[in-house]
C-alpha cells in the first residue's frame, strides 16, 4: 500500500493531469449536494437537538438545561391534545384513505370506460395544496354558508353539520378533509399494484371457479400486501408532518382542540418565544417518524436481500 503511494508521483508524468482530474469529476459533481445534504440532515438535527436541551426562549441561547424542555413539554396539556389528535387522525386518515383508495382502484380495474378521466378526477386533489383544500373545506364546514345551510335550504330544516364549530368534532373535519385529499393517491398506488399482479395467477383462480370477490380476497390482494404497507408508511409520514391542512382549515381551533404537533412546534417557536421547548417538540416529531421509518426500512432491506439470495 505504502509503496504504491510512493510510486504515484513517479508515475504521474505518464498520466496527463487532465485524465487525473477526470477521475475526480464524479466526486466533484456530487460534493456540493453531499455537503448540503449532510448539513441539512445531520448538522441541523444536532443543532435542533442541542436547542432542545438549552434554555432558549425568544432567541436561541446555549445554556444547557438537560431534559427540562422535554419534561415541561410532556407536562403540557396542549401537547397531550396534540399527540392524541395525531393518533386519532393517523388512524382514521390511513384506514379511511386506504379503504376508499382500494375501492376506487378495484372499480377502475374492472375495465371501465374512460379510465384516464376517472383517475384524473380522483387524483387532482394531490396537485392542490393543503392550504387551498383546507381553506375551501373550512367554507363548506361553515354552518352558516356551507353544507349545513345547503341541505337546510333543500327542505331538511333541522339538518346539522357543524363539525368545525365544536371542540369535540373539529378533529373529524380535519380527518374527512385529509381523506378527501389523499385517497386518490392511495388509489393510484393500489391500481398500479393491481396491474402488476401476474395475469396467469388471476386466470388460474377463475378457471378454478373462484368468484370475483374471492379472487380479489384470496389471490390478488395478498400478492399486493407490500403495497398496503408502503401506502400506510407514506400516509403516516403525511400525518406526522400535518401542518398546512390544519393551519388553513381550523387554525388549531376551536380553542386548542385541533392542535397537532407540527402546529404546536410553530406556536412555541414563533408565537410564544419558547424556542427550547419548541425544539423539543420538533425532536419528538422526528422520533415519531423514526419509530415508523426505521423498522420499515430495515424490513425493506431485509426483503431485498432475501430476494437477491433467492433470485
Amino acid at each position: 500500500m505504502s509503496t504504491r503511494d510512493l510510486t504515484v508521483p513517479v508515475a504521474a508524468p505518464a498520466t496527463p493531469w487532465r485524465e487525473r482530474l477526470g477521475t475526480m469529476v464524479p466526486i466533484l459533481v456530487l460534493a456540493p449536494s453531499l455537503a448540503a445534504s449532510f448539513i441539512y440532515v445531520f448538522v441541523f438535527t444536532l443543532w435542533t437537538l442541542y436547542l432542545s436541551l438549552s434554555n432558549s426562549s425568544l432567541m436561541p441561547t446555549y445554556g444547557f438545561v438537560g431534559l427540562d424542555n422535554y419534561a415541561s413539554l410532556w407536562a403540557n396539556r396542549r401537547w397531550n391534545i396534540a399527540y392524541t389528535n395525531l393518533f386519532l387522525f393517523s388512524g382514521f386518515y390511513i384506514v379511511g384513505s386506504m379503504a376508499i383508495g382500494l375501492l376506487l382502484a378495484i372499480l377502475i380495474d374492472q375495465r371501465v370506460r374512460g379510465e384516464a378521466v376517472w383517475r384524473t378526477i380522483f387524483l387532482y386533489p394531490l396537485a392542490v395544496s393543503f392550504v387551498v383544500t383546507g381553506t375551501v373545506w373550512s367554507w363548506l364546514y361553515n354552518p352558516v354558508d356551507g353544507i349545513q345551510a345547503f341541505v337546510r335550504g333543500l327542505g331538511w330544516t333541522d339538518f346539522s353539520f357543524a363539525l368545525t364549530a365544536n371542540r369535540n368534532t373539529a378533529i373529524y373535519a380535519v380527518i374527512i378533509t385529509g381523506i378527501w385529499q389523499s385517497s386518490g393517491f392511495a388509489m393510484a398506488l393500489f391500481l398500479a399494484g393491481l396491474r402488476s399482479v401476474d395475469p396467469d395467477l388471476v386466470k388460474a383462480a377463475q378457471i378454478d371457479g373462484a368468484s370475483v370477490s374471492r379472487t380479489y380476497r384470496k389471490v390478488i390482494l395478498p400478492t399486493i400486501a407490500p403495497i398496503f404497507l408502503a401506502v400506510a408508511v407514506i400516509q403516516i409520514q403525511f400525518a406526522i408532518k400535518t401542518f398546512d391542512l390544519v393551519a388553513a382549515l381550523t387554525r388549531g381551533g376551536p380553542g386548542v382542540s385541533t392542535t397537532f404537533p407540527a402546529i404546536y412546534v410553530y406556536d412555541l417557536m414563533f408565537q410564544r418565544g419558547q424556542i427550547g421547548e419548541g425544539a423539543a417538540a420538533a425532536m419528538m416529531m422526528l422520533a415519531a417518524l423514526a419509530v415508523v421509518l426505521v423498522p420499515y426500512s430495515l424490513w425493506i432491506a431485509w426483503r431485498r436481500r432475501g430476494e437477491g439470495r433467492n433470485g
Partner: protein
Amino acid sequence: MAEIALNAQHDPEAAAAARRYFWRRFLIYAVLALFAVIYLAPLLVVVFNSLREQSDIARNGLISLPRSFRLDAWAQAWGTYCVSGTCEGMKRNFFNSLWMTIPATVISTLLGAMNGYVLSKWRFKGSEILFNLMLLGVFMPGQISLMPWAFLLGKFGLTNSTYGLVLIHVVQGISFTTLFCRNFYVSIPDDLIKAARIDGAGFWRIFRKIILPLSPPILIVTVVWQFTGIWNEYLFGVVFTSGQQQPITAALVALTAGGTTARAYDVMSAAVLIGALPPLLIYLFGGKYFVRGLTQGAIK
C-alpha cells in the same frame, strides 16, 4: 357485449347472466360517479363562487349555481383586493411563488440528475452509503430545520426574501430528485456507458449524449414533484417571509383569516383558484407520466 345481448333473446340462462352483468356494470359506474361528485364538488363550488355576486352568495349560501357570470372577483383578487392595508391583490404573491418555484425546481432537478448519474454510473467506494445518507433528507420534518435555517438565512442576509426560500427548497429537494433520478438511471444498461467510454467519451459527454436523451420520463416526474411541492409549500413561506414577500400559500391563509369585513367569498374564491391553478395545470399536462413514474418507484 353485443354477443351477450344477442344470446339473451334465446337462452334464459344467458339472459339472467346478461342482467347480472348489466347490474354489476351499473353499480360500478354508479359508485365511481358518486365519488367523482364528491371529488369535484369543492372545485365546482369555488369556481362558481368566483363568478357569482357577493350579494347572491350572502343570500343563498356557498353551494348554489351561478346566476351571473362576472370576472370582477378575479380582477379584484388578482390586482386590487386589500389584505392588511395594502391593496394589490394576489399578483405580487403569485409572482413571488413563481420566482421561488421555477429556479428551485430547475436547480434541484439538474443537481438531482447529475447526482443520480454519478451514483448509478460512476460508483466509487462508499457511494452507496453516501446515497443512503442523502436519502435521509426525504424523511426530515421541516420543523427540525426551522431554527438552523433562521440562523443561516440571517447570516446570508436572505431573511424575508424569495432567494432564501429558493435555497431552502433546493437543499430540501436534492434528496428527492437524486432518489428519483438515481433509481431511474440504474435501469440504463451499463454496457451502453462502457461502450461510450471505450469510444473515448468522458463523464460530461456521456451525460449529454446518452443519459440526458433517455431522461425525459424521469425529468417529468421530478419536475412535477418539485414544482407542485414547492409551489404548495406553506411552512417555510409563513415562517421566513412576511407581507409583500410571502408566497401565495401564506398570502392565502392571511387573506382568508382576515375577519375584519364580511367574508368576500367571491374574491377569496378567485384568489384560491389563482393559487391552485399553476400546480393544477402542471398536473394536467404532466400527471400521466408523473403517476406512472411515481407508482413504478413505489412498487419497486
